[in-house]
């Protein structure tokens, strides 16, 4: 299989962490392909008409899938050791799925105006403040007091793909230093805990971290 990724993108990092953790690249089961600058080529669009990353290209002409959470699920289901990251028990798995869906439905949309200016996208500074207020008042409390209430990882004593969906996106807040100072320590500690659990993806985590920490363009110095 081939995993097409954008090395710096938090949405690719979870999939990369799964591949490295399960040693799928070392065992020749998954080839990691840097798709930067290639997602609008005819070849890529033939594989993924939605021209996004990560994309998992199956073997034997079985096509491809995208959407980071779907890719992480498939990698875990298809490979030995995957249960470590995506527990088979239906109740635990349901909770992991819920957190992944919460990531896409709730917290990730509220990062848009906070982070996308680093990728050259026009954002609304008033909306950035509002979104950060929502992180502080709603989303971080849900993460800490519900998903991490009794466990160091979301509903789990060990990190799962739910944590890989959530933690890497927190790095994006480093693009606005004064905002990041206000992120609760418990969230920062959780984020670091997840990163430390996946040393194989360090190189990619560091790329995004460096980009965000060194960002000094519009909004970098904004007050939350």
């Amino acid at each position, binding site marked *: 299989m081939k995993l097409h990724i954008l090395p710096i993108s938090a949405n690719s990092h979870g999939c990369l962490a799964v591949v490295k953790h399960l040693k799928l690249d070392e065992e020749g089961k998954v080839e990691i392909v840097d798709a930067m600058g290639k997602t609008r080529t005819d070849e890529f669009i033939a594989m993924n008409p939605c021209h996004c990353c990560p994309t998992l290209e*199956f073997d034997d002409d079985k096509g491809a899938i995208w959407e980071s959470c779907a890719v992480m699920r498939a990698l875990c289901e298809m490979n030995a050791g995957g249960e470590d990251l995506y527990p088979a028990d239906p109740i635990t798995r349901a909770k992991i799925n819920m957190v992944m*869906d*919460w990531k896409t439905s709730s917290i990730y949309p509220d990062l848009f105006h906070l982070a996308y200016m680093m990728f050259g996208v026009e954002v609304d500074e008033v909306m950035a403040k509002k979104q950060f207020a929502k992180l502080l008042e709603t989303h971080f409390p849900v993460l800490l007091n*519900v998903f991490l209430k009794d466990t160091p990882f979301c509903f789990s004593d060990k990190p799962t793909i739910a944590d890989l969906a959530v933690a890497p996106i927190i790095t994006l807040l480093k693009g606005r230093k004064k905002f990041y100072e206000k992120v609760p320590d418990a969230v920062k500690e959780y984020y670091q805990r997840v990163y430390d659990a996946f040393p194989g993806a360090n190189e990619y985590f560091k790329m995004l971290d460096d980009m965000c920490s060194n960002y000094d363009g519009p909004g970098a110095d904004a007050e939350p």
Partner: protein
Amino acid sequence: MKLHILPPSPNSHGCIAVVKHLKLEDKIEIVNAYGKTRTDEFLAINPCHCCPTLEMDGDDGAIWESNAVMRFLCKKFDTEGELYPTDIVKAGRVDMVLDWRQTTFYPCIPNIGYVVFGMPCDETKAKEDFKKLIDVHFKTLLDVFLKDTPYCFSEKPTIADLAIAPVITFIKARAKFWDAVPDAIKEYHTRVLEAFPGVEENFKMLDGMTTSYSGDGADAEP
């Protein structure tokens, strides 16, 4: 188990469809949670006070997020893989569509459809979001997910279709927007809803709310 739902909400409709289709009514009580999601009792079950919420047995707690609820119900009860394939590659495609619905499709709906709930909507964004549906997302649905099959990557409807089709009803709140929806989308929408007659009552509730809506934005041009 108890499935707490909001009867007219398309986010609840997929879960109700799974319960009815797999004939789980003796195992799962469907509870109308309208007006109750901020009570202490509900918050104890789900601190995120949203629906659908599946309250599991014993001390297993509860889960929410409609796609997670549908996946769980299928994993536990759909042993034949009828609504959620057991084949990993097929399931991977269904998962991708479920996630696309969350990340890409559904965010274009609130400004168009939430007017029926009396919520303030941004009219400029409603037009922009509808344009995205027409220019990009309906094409993804028709030309990619439904390219070779009557349902998303499948000959029979799955939970991916249940995540998408009920939501399309929201567009009926704005008659002129609905006129501009491609016929193939409307046919898909009807095809999915007709495949789940057990949910007809709930589908009709939202349909009635949207088609009879005449408040702000009802007559807007797309």
